[in-house]
């Protein structure tokens, strides 16, 4: 089925490549060095390609050049595998590389699982390619629903607790590197399945202090507290819990801002025998300085109204365990990670930058 030759122009720019095929694997050699392996399934269809190329780097490609190269790749590789994978999402990773996801079209709908996933380096060399299995069975039926009712059920299931959070620009699309009071959604989002909306169990907190502390505990906490005062005199923290093994004790702290606790942790590990600090972990955002945001909080009712305008009902896919893991569609909700508790502005987590999305021609 595949002899490996047509892969050459995507996996390297070198000329003298030797191809060593066997039943399940095709190896590509540049001199004595294996630069990549192509894995085949029982029928000879590709199941994955993995590059071992580290050293040779070529000039970075422009997005235009890359998309042109991609079209060739699709004709020769993707369509030969299965030409119904014609919905594609091309995105740019933070390291400059390109992710391309190919989705199978079924009755005009792109299937968002069982995708073909390709990763190209910045210079256009194919670095990793994973194929799904070829025979997947589907159940296309999608229940009739009342969208507004689903949204309302979803919002009603959210615990909607107010938290003070640092909205880092690296993490959030609209991050402004300031502290905001937010209603957090992402970590407490309800689960939506075939039976409707279900409340998730609340996140487990780290092991909080038991009511009584031993003398030793107090000593270790004091050592940790003193150390933090030295290392970060400008940052205020308060201890919230501990964990211990025979050798050491780890004490957890929460960053405080004007006496309001932030969801940012610091932990200090103390060697019990030597009574010295052997470990430290600081959530990077702890070092961010700032002031408490001002303004009146939206009431829960107002917050829910804002949220209803910022969530979307979308069709999604799941594996139906009861039907031999057949793929089944269900209605899902797309929601922001958090919402400003004062202004109602949604905060959306940053993902790879999408360059192009849609059905390719």
């Amino acid at each position, binding site marked *: 089925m595949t002899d490996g030759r047509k892969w050459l122009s995507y996996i390297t720019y070198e000329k003298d490549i030797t191809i060593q095929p066997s039943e399940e694997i095709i190896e590509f050699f540049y001199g004595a060095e294996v630069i990549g392996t192509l894995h085949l399934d029982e029928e000879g269809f590709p199941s994955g390609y993995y590059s071992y190329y580290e050293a040779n780097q070529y000039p970075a490609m422009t997005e235009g050049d890359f998309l042109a190269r991609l079209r060739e790749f699709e004709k020769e590789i993707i369509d030969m595998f299965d030409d119904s994978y014609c919905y594609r999402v091309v995105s740019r990773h*933070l*390291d400059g590389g390109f992710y391309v996801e190919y989705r199978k079209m079924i009755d005009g709908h792109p299937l968002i699982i069982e995708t073909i996933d390709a990763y190209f380096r910045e210079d256009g060399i194919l670095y990793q390619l994973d194929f799904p299995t070829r025979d997947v069975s589907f159940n296309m039926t999608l229940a009739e629903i009342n969208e507004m009712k689903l949204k309302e059920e979803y919002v009603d299931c959210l615990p909607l607790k107010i938290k003070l959070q640092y909205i880092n620009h*690296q993490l959030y699309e609209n991050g402004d590197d300031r502290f905001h009071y937010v209603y957090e959604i992402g970590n407490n989002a309800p689960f939506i399945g075939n039976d409707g909306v279900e409340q998730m169990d609340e996140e487990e907190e780290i092991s909080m202090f038991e009511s009584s502390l031993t003398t030793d505990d107090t000593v270790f906490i004091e050592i940790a507290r003193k*150390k933090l005062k*030295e*290392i*970060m005199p400008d940052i205020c923290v308060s201890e919230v819990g501990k964990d211990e093994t025979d050798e050491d004790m780890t004490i957890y702290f929460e960053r405080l801002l004007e006496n309001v606790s932030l969801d940012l942790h610091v932990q200090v590990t103390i*060697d019990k*025998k*030597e009574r*010295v*600090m*052997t*470990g*430290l*972990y*600081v*959530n*990077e955002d702890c*070092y*961010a300085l700032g002031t408490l945001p001002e303004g009146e909080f939206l009431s829960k009712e107002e917050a829910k109204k804002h949220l209803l305008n910022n969530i979307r009902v979308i069709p999604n896919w799941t594996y139906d365990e009861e039907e031999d893991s057949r793929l089944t569609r269900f209605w899902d909700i797309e929601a922001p990670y958090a919402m400003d508790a004062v202004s109602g502005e949604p905060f959306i987590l940053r993902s790879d930058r999408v360059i192009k999305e849609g059905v390719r021609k």
Partner: protein
Amino acid sequence: MSLETLKKWLETANTTCTFTEDDDDGMFSVYLDDEEIGMIQLNGDGSFQSYETYDDREVHERLSNEELFKRGKMILHDVFEERAKQFPLATGVELGMYTVSLHPVDETGKELPIYALSVTMYLDGMVESITSPEGTFRVEDIELLFTKEELKENYIASLPLSLRFMKYDAEEYIGGDDTYHLVYDVISESPLVHPNGELEFFEEEEEENDVDPEWADLTKDFIEKHIAPVDIRVVSTVDSDDVGPNSVEVTFIRMYKGIRVGDRSTLHFSKEFKRVIHAELDVSLYAEIEESASPVMTKEEVRKALYKELDFHIAPSYKDEEYEDDFIHVFERGYVERFPDGKGAVHAYDAVTKQPWYVNTSSIIEE
């Protein structure tokens, strides 16, 4: 078949153990009263292969190592019956839990490592897991490239015997006092001995490559200000996605008058804030060093002392696996290091008192 006998080892005074077969693939779920506590896997021929519990118990009253060793042997003989007779050599070791293994021996009566019937118990004697090896084994004789004396000489001559300050750890070494001593290190840079007597060396990883002075200086500053006023040598600074986004990893080691102290430590800095976000610090950074320590023993004396301690015997070691009609574990009969009676290997010599540091093996029982 021994499933019934296993029950009595899993039950406690007031519980009943039952098994239910999951599928036709030889898997059984194990229940203690109504609670599922683990699973049993059978071999293709229906014989017992392994048991594993999901239960994570807290131990309140522990048995002594001798009691656990005896109990472990009884369990293995009970569960494996006739098969256990082909595994005559028993060993026991405590590492948080207690493991008893029965090993086969070769024609010369020497133990085959790895290939064993084993039971691991919580320290109160309750079974955590029982395992048995698949397939059979074969021992091959190989050509030895050197005599025993030649091997010892090659081995000892290859050691660089670096001077270091090492912690005489009370748990790890016999007579350890948990303080730092000036020693000749005979273990960290020692070669691997292949069964035919060939030595394999590991690459020296002490190269000071890729040290960015900005992060090295920040590290020195942090250690001096917040940890201890000690000299350090920065081994590497790594700025790549592998160590986390937007952070730099600095690896360093304490030095005293040009001699390494203890093990390496690492700091991670946030690139944005230029402050420490993660630290793993070796306790040696805080240790007191005997300022006047200077070596009395010579390297020649170390080599002579080590020559008396070091011993090899001819015994099987694991080579690889073969799958033909059957699954075969292949062993090679060649050189294997033998340790002094009742002690482990020598890891170091105190350069001042000339005392050897023996690994403490008192938690191991061998019959």
